[in-house]
Protein backbone atom coordinates (compact mmCIF):
# COMPACT_ATOMS: atom_id res chain seq x y z
CA UNK A 1 0.00 0.00 0.00
CA UNK A 2 1.35 3.41 -0.96
CA UNK A 3 1.88 5.55 2.11
CA UNK A 4 3.56 8.64 3.50
CA UNK A 5 4.57 8.97 7.14
CA UNK A 6 5.49 12.24 8.81
CA UNK A 7 7.13 12.88 12.13
CA UNK A 8 6.70 14.35 14.56
CA UNK A 9 2.95 14.79 14.29
CA UNK A 10 3.10 17.80 16.57
CA UNK A 11 5.91 20.11 17.64
CA UNK A 12 6.06 23.15 19.92
CA UNK A 13 9.11 25.42 19.82
CA UNK A 14 10.06 28.98 20.71
CA UNK A 15 10.92 31.74 18.30
CA UNK A 16 14.47 31.47 17.08
CA UNK A 17 14.65 27.69 17.36
CA UNK A 18 15.54 25.49 14.38
CA UNK A 19 13.20 22.63 13.51
CA UNK A 20 13.50 19.57 11.30
CA UNK A 21 10.40 17.88 9.96
CA UNK A 22 10.58 14.36 8.57
CA UNK A 23 8.75 12.62 5.77
CA UNK A 24 9.24 8.98 4.74
CA UNK A 25 7.40 7.18 2.00
CA UNK A 26 6.68 3.89 0.33
CA UNK A 27 5.25 4.21 -3.15
CA UNK A 28 5.61 2.55 -6.51
CA UNK A 29 6.59 4.65 -9.53
CA UNK A 30 7.86 7.57 -7.47
CA UNK A 31 7.71 10.82 -9.40
CA UNK A 32 8.22 13.67 -6.92
CA UNK A 33 7.97 14.75 -3.30
CA UNK A 34 6.30 18.00 -2.34
CA UNK A 35 6.10 20.05 0.82
CA UNK A 36 3.15 22.30 1.60
CA UNK A 37 2.32 24.74 4.39
CA UNK A 38 -1.28 24.80 5.54
CA UNK A 39 -2.34 27.67 7.76
CA UNK A 40 -6.07 27.92 7.22
CA UNK A 41 -7.83 25.93 4.55
CA UNK A 42 -5.76 25.72 1.38
CA UNK A 43 -2.22 24.33 1.48
CA UNK A 44 0.40 26.50 -0.19
CA UNK A 45 3.29 25.03 -2.11
CA UNK A 46 6.79 25.17 -0.62
CA UNK A 47 9.08 22.80 -2.50
CA UNK A 48 9.11 20.06 -5.09
CA UNK A 49 11.95 17.54 -4.95
CA UNK A 50 12.75 14.97 -7.60
CA UNK A 51 16.48 14.30 -7.27
CA UNK A 52 18.44 12.97 -4.31
CA UNK A 53 20.92 15.11 -2.47
CA UNK A 54 20.04 18.45 -4.03
CA UNK A 55 18.98 20.94 -1.38
CA UNK A 56 16.23 23.37 -2.22
CA UNK A 57 16.22 26.60 -0.26
CA UNK A 58 13.84 29.48 0.19
CA UNK A 59 14.73 31.99 2.85
CA UNK A 60 14.79 30.22 6.19
CA UNK A 61 13.31 27.03 4.75
CA UNK A 62 15.24 24.27 3.07
CA UNK A 63 14.54 20.71 2.06
CA UNK A 64 16.38 17.70 0.73
CA UNK A 65 15.40 14.28 -0.61
CA UNK A 66 17.05 10.89 -0.17
CA UNK A 67 15.61 8.50 -2.75
CA UNK A 68 17.72 5.61 -1.53
CA UNK A 69 16.44 5.78 2.03
CA UNK A 70 13.02 7.05 0.88
CA UNK A 71 12.74 10.15 3.01
CA UNK A 72 12.87 13.91 2.96
CA UNK A 73 13.43 16.57 5.60
CA UNK A 74 12.20 20.12 5.83
CA UNK A 75 14.31 22.49 7.89
CA UNK A 76 13.19 25.82 9.26
CA UNK A 77 15.82 28.00 10.89
CA UNK A 78 15.25 30.98 13.19
CA UNK A 79 11.57 30.11 13.50
CA UNK A 80 8.98 32.86 13.80
CA UNK A 81 5.41 32.79 15.07
CA UNK A 82 4.28 33.10 11.46
CA UNK A 83 5.75 29.69 10.78
CA UNK A 84 3.04 28.12 12.92
CA UNK A 85 1.09 25.86 10.58
CA UNK A 86 0.60 22.29 9.49
CA UNK A 87 3.36 21.13 7.15
CA UNK A 88 2.21 18.52 4.67
CA UNK A 89 4.38 16.13 2.72
CA UNK A 90 2.96 14.66 -0.47
CA UNK A 91 4.45 12.11 -2.85
CA UNK A 92 3.59 11.99 -6.52
CA UNK A 93 3.46 8.51 -7.96
CA UNK A 94 2.05 7.31 -11.24
CA UNK A 95 -0.65 9.87 -11.98
CA UNK A 96 -1.63 10.59 -8.40
CA UNK A 97 -0.45 11.96 -5.08
CA UNK A 98 -0.58 10.61 -1.56
CA UNK A 99 -0.36 12.92 1.44
CA UNK A 100 1.08 12.36 4.86
CA UNK A 101 -0.88 13.31 7.98
CA UNK A 102 1.10 16.51 8.43
CA UNK A 103 3.20 17.95 11.22
CA UNK A 104 1.53 20.64 13.32
CA UNK A 105 4.17 23.21 14.22
CA UNK A 106 3.49 25.78 16.92
CA UNK A 107 6.04 28.56 17.40
CA UNK A 108 5.67 30.40 20.68
CA UNK A 109 6.86 34.00 21.13
Amino acid at each position, binding site marked *: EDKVVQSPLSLVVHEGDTVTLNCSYEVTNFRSLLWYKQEKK*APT*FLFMLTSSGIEKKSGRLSSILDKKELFSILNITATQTGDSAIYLCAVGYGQNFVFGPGTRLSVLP
Partner: protein
Amino acid sequence: GAGVSQSPSNKVTEKGKDVELRCDPISGHTALYWYRQRLGQGLEFLIYFQGNSAPDKSGLPSDRFSAERTGESVSTLTIQRTQQEDSAVYLCASSWPGGPTDTQYFGPGTRLTVL
Protein backbone atom coordinates in the same frame (compact mmCIF):
# COMPACT_ATOMS: atom_id res chain seq x y z
CA GLY B 1 -8.81 33.03 -13.27
CA ALA B 2 -5.53 33.15 -11.48
CA GLY B 3 -6.08 30.16 -9.26
CA VAL B 4 -8.40 27.35 -8.30
CA SER B 5 -11.76 28.54 -7.04
CA GLN B 6 -14.36 26.69 -5.03
CA SER B 7 -17.91 27.44 -4.06
CA PRO B 8 -19.56 27.80 -1.72
CA SER B 9 -16.89 28.69 0.81
CA ASN B 10 -19.14 27.53 3.63
CA LYS B 11 -22.17 25.26 3.60
CA VAL B 12 -24.38 24.33 6.52
CA THR B 13 -26.95 21.66 5.87
CA GLU B 14 -29.22 19.32 7.73
CA LYS B 15 -28.63 15.63 8.00
CA GLY B 16 -30.19 13.78 5.09
CA LYS B 17 -30.00 16.65 2.61
CA ASP B 18 -27.95 16.53 -0.59
CA VAL B 19 -25.16 19.03 -1.24
CA GLU B 20 -23.16 20.04 -4.31
CA LEU B 21 -19.68 21.49 -4.11
CA ARG B 22 -18.11 23.17 -7.09
CA CYS B 23 -14.50 23.49 -8.22
CA ASP B 24 -13.10 25.62 -11.04
CA PRO B 25 -9.53 24.52 -11.79
CA ILE B 26 -6.76 26.57 -13.30
CA SER B 27 -7.24 26.86 -17.04
CA GLY B 28 -5.12 24.32 -18.89
CA HIS B 29 -4.72 21.98 -15.93
CA THR B 30 -5.79 18.56 -17.09
CA ALA B 31 -5.79 16.90 -13.66
CA LEU B 32 -8.28 17.66 -10.89
CA TYR B 33 -8.40 16.19 -7.40
CA TRP B 34 -10.88 16.25 -4.57
CA TYR B 35 -9.77 15.81 -0.96
CA ARG B 36 -11.49 15.81 2.37
CA GLN B 37 -9.93 17.11 5.55
CA ARG B 38 -11.67 16.45 8.80
CA LEU B 39 -10.88 18.66 11.76
CA GLY B 40 -7.37 18.01 12.99
CA GLN B 41 -6.66 15.33 10.43
CA GLY B 42 -4.66 15.01 7.23
CA LEU B 43 -5.84 15.21 3.67
CA GLU B 44 -7.92 12.25 2.52
CA PHE B 45 -7.96 11.57 -1.22
CA LEU B 46 -11.45 11.22 -2.69
CA ILE B 47 -11.32 11.24 -6.49
CA TYR B 48 -9.00 12.15 -9.36
CA PHE B 49 -9.81 13.25 -12.93
CA GLN B 50 -7.23 13.27 -15.70
CA GLY B 51 -8.29 14.56 -19.09
CA ASN B 52 -10.82 12.27 -20.74
CA SER B 53 -9.69 9.16 -18.87
CA ALA B 54 -12.01 7.33 -16.50
CA PRO B 55 -11.74 8.97 -13.07
CA ASP B 56 -10.01 7.26 -10.18
CA LYS B 57 -12.81 6.94 -7.65
CA SER B 58 -10.92 4.72 -5.25
CA GLY B 59 -11.04 7.26 -2.42
CA LEU B 60 -14.77 7.86 -2.35
CA PRO B 61 -15.92 6.68 1.10
CA SER B 62 -19.41 5.50 0.11
CA ASP B 63 -21.91 5.47 -2.73
CA ARG B 64 -23.40 8.66 -1.33
CA PHE B 65 -20.41 10.47 -2.81
CA SER B 66 -20.07 11.15 -6.52
CA ALA B 67 -18.24 13.62 -8.69
CA GLU B 68 -18.35 14.77 -12.26
CA ARG B 69 -16.14 16.88 -14.43
CA THR B 70 -17.05 18.59 -17.66
CA GLY B 71 -14.15 18.10 -20.03
CA GLU B 72 -11.12 19.75 -18.48
CA SER B 73 -13.03 22.41 -16.62
CA VAL B 74 -15.50 22.59 -13.77
CA SER B 75 -16.03 19.70 -11.37
CA THR B 76 -18.89 19.07 -9.00
CA LEU B 77 -18.71 16.86 -5.91
CA THR B 78 -22.12 15.67 -4.76
CA ILE B 79 -22.88 14.18 -1.38
CA GLN B 80 -26.29 12.62 -1.06
CA ARG B 81 -28.18 12.07 2.20
CA THR B 82 -25.48 13.87 4.18
CA GLN B 83 -24.41 12.51 7.56
CA GLN B 84 -22.76 14.31 10.44
CA GLU B 85 -19.50 12.50 9.75
CA ASP B 86 -19.41 14.22 6.35
CA SER B 87 -18.62 17.50 8.12
CA ALA B 88 -15.19 18.54 6.90
CA VAL B 89 -13.35 20.90 4.60
CA TYR B 90 -13.48 19.71 1.02
CA LEU B 91 -10.46 20.79 -0.97
CA CYS B 92 -10.06 20.76 -4.71
CA ALA B 93 -6.71 20.90 -6.46
CA SER B 94 -5.59 20.97 -10.05
CA SER B 95 -2.31 20.22 -11.72
CA TRP B 96 -0.62 19.72 -15.03
CA PRO B 97 0.86 16.20 -14.79
CA GLY B 98 4.28 16.10 -16.33
CA GLY B 99 4.46 19.86 -16.46
CA PRO B 100 7.46 21.85 -15.33
CA THR B 101 6.43 22.02 -11.70
CA ASP B 102 4.23 18.95 -11.21
CA THR B 103 2.55 20.82 -8.40
CA GLN B 104 -0.97 20.71 -7.17
CA TYR B 105 -2.63 24.07 -6.74
CA PHE B 106 -5.31 24.07 -4.13
CA GLY B 107 -8.53 26.00 -3.94
CA PRO B 108 -9.65 27.68 -0.72
CA GLY B 109 -11.92 24.78 0.13
CA THR B 110 -15.55 24.43 1.13
CA ARG B 111 -16.30 24.00 4.81
CA LEU B 112 -19.27 21.66 5.11
CA THR B 113 -21.17 21.42 8.37
CA VAL B 114 -23.89 18.82 8.69
CA LEU B 115 -26.21 19.45 11.62
